[in-house]
């Protein structure tokens, strides 16, 4: 009985920590919007946006899980996230563009990783050349 209580307590603490993290992020984002538009946000407003975001995450998570399962996958992919943005045309367009951007960036990063070992060799050679010149 006590163990169940402890587990419950732990889950509650985890939730609170995540909420705090969301609150911090929302605070930063609101600060940006505020300085951009020269309007202030009350603390309660920031707290309310955080709470809404945290609760929306439940819907998002359940939707994503269902989408993946519908496609007979156990891993959620960017296709599922795109489906999540279906309700608004401009949002879908933006998310699709962002997806391509992220894919492009990751491709470049992978290409760099492959190239890096060669760069490392060059770096180690260069000092030797300098010494030779001196």
């Amino acid at each position: 009985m006590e163990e169940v209580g402890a587990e419950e307590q732990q889950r509650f603490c985890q939730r609170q920590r995540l909420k705090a993290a969301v609150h911090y992020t929302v605070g930063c984002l609101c600060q940006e919007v505020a300085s951009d538009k020269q309007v202030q946000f009350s603390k309660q407003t920031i707290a309310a946006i955080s709470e809404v975001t945290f609760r929306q995450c439940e819907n998002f998570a359940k939707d994503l899980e269902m989408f993946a399962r519908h496609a007979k996958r156990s891993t959620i992919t960017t296709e599922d996230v795109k489906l999540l943005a279906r309700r608004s045309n401009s949002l879908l367009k933006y998310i699709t563009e962002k997806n391509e951007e992220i894919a492009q960036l990751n491709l470049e990063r992978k290409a760099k990783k492959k190239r890096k070992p060669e760069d490392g060799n060059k770096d180690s050679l260069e000092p030797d050349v300098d010494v030779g010149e001196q």
Partner: protein
Amino acid sequence: MEETSGFRKELVSRLLHLHFRDCKTKVSGDALQLMAEFLRIFVVEAAARGVCQAQAEDLDVVNVDQLEKVLPQLLLDF
């Protein structure tokens, strides 16, 4: 700039895993990154619509009242 103030991938991952019914469900790295952007848009959109409402009411501060007015449409859009 987005990297400094957006949602971190780890946070997004934990938020999603908190609500998954099946603990075997996984999220790909790209999906996490896109989801972080999605959440960032959600928050920025909430803030921006709040600002619009406050400006329409000729206020300098966005209060919960203004947020309440834009919230229904916001939730329909996401």
